[in-house]
């Protein structure tokens, strides 16, 4: 039986910014194994992104506990969470979130700066990651010089660079045409085959089929499909 990488135990999260509290997650529990490709589906507002943020240590649950590699994260200080995030967790966003004034290489090596990695090693690692997603000839290109699919592959390279093995992908194909979307999912599948754990948030059932397991969220509750 594979090791359990992520454990979510009865997690709840409510937003209090509006007129009335909005419960985004209600008692969600799940486990994600090392090397798994999990898809989280559900309509808008079902809590997918909230759950992904908690998995990525970008947010904290109001109730319940989230364990990363067996380590309870709720009480971890912010600095420790940032270090854990920087070393182990990669994000892929729908809007790519690349810095427009940085080349593909510079975008990929950005996170490595916060790991206090030397410049030469940063460049080597970033170039290797870009090569892995098939962009070895686009290292010096700015985002505007790349297609949408290529930009998303740069974002994937940024997510895996430096040995990160957990990829949290929030609607990574939402801004792509079908061909580019399948190409990006192909890259993610390839990385999963090499051992990376992938959590894919999508409301597109076709894309969810790339995953080995699909979980659905509705109104903050988790449903098994």
């Amino acid at each position, binding site marked *: 039986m594979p090791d359990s990488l992520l454990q979510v135990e009865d997690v709840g999260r409510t937003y209090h910014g509006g007129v009335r509290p909005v419960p985004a997650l209600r008692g969600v529990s799940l486990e994600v194994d090392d090397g798994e490709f999990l898809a989280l589906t559900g309509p808008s507002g079902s809590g997918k992104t909230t759950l992904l943020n908690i998995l990525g240590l*970008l*947010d904290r649950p109001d109730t319940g506990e989230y364990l990363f590699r067996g380590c309870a994260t709720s009480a971890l200080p912010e600095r420790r969470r*940032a270090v854990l995030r*920087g070393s182990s967790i990669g994000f892929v966003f729908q809007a790519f*979130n690349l*810095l427009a*004034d940085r080349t593909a290489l510079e975008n990929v090596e950005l996170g490595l700066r*916060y790991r*206090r990695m030397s410049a030469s090693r940063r460049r080597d690692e970033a170039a290797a990651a870009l090569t892995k997603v098939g962009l070895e000839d686009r290292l010096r290109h700015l985002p505007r010089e790349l297609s949408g699919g290529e930009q998303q592959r740069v974002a994937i390279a940024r997510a895996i660079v430096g040995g990160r093995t957990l990829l949290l992908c929030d609607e990574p194909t939402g801004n792509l045409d079908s061909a580019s979307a399948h190409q990006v999912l192909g890259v993610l599948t390839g990385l999963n085959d090499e051992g990376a754990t992938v959590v894919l948030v999508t409301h597109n059932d076709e894309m969810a089929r790339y995953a080995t397991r699909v979980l659905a969220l509705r109104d903050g509750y988790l449903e098994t499909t």
Partner: protein
Amino acid sequence: MSDYRRPSAWLVAAAEAMLSILGNPGRAFVVSLGAVLGAGLFTATLGLTGTARSEVRADFDAFRATEVVASSESSDPAWVSPEDLARIRRLGGVVSAGLVRTTDERVELSTVLDRRSGVRLRVSGVTPGALDVIEPRVVEGRTYDQIHENLAVPVALVPEAAYRELTGVRPGSQIFLDGEAFVVIGVYDGVARGLGVLGTVLVPMSASERWLADVPAEVLVEVAPGAAETIAAQLPVGLRPDAPGLVSASALLDPDAFRLRIEENVVRMSVAASIAALTVGALIIGIATGSSIATRVAEFGLRRALGATPGDLGLQVLAETALLGTFGGAVGASIGLIVTVGVALASGWTPALDVTAAAASVGFSALGGLIGGVVPARRAMGIEPAEALRR
């Protein structure tokens, strides 16, 4: 690992700050505008002040000490002779010179109509040459001259206070100094030099022997502007070549102190104005950076997602504002120097470039940028990554 050198957090922040600045020159320009203005005003204000100070100094030089007084430790009250005076009058820079003796004790001044006035004044024996130095401001009548001196004519220049207090004191009237009759030749209300005689009754030296025979004489010398120190140095030998050590001479009423005080005030005001300018610059940096933080929330959210700690973001913002402050300060200081030169030349002045002030303005701008970045840095540190990434 050998190639795993760990740059400090500050180095990472500085590198990221530099990349952010170079990647967004427009934003950097707006933010650094504060530093440009602050440093520019700082340098220009101090530069123009320096220039103006030079002009003030030049103006004041025209009114530099024009009076030198020499006295002697000699026991002989008549330690200086007419020949000695004639010798120093030949010195270059000497305009006029003469002797003054002033009583230590006050003598009673009375008139025919007011025989026991109770008015007691000191008496100064003043040679016509010394009178030229003193330049008493005569409000009525006239001054006496060499003929009065040579003939020991008992005439007196009376201070205006006595003129007001005593009945019958006017030019041509007779007064009595300790019972000795003098004719009032004039009334004066001030002196240009020789403040020691102000308020005394001025009489010819030759006519004051009764009171002044035992009083040591002082030599009053009027000199050309700027010559006071030189003449003061030459006077001992000039007056007493046989015993210069007995003579001490000093330039009096040097307006340098007054000038320096004015300069200090001008500088103090300009420094205050300059600091205000730099403060404004720091505020502009802070406000502009604060505004830019609002537009960079998603970027900071991404950085947090990539492993940046709140401290990393705070350091980056501080590094950015400090760098922009430095850049802006350098540009502003350069502009300030150019403005100083331009204004000085246009005004026909010699520009006094204060490079130290320019360098200081760069340093202050960097510091101002750092201080201005504190609030934006705190805002950046407080950004919630999950919230930021939704934008």
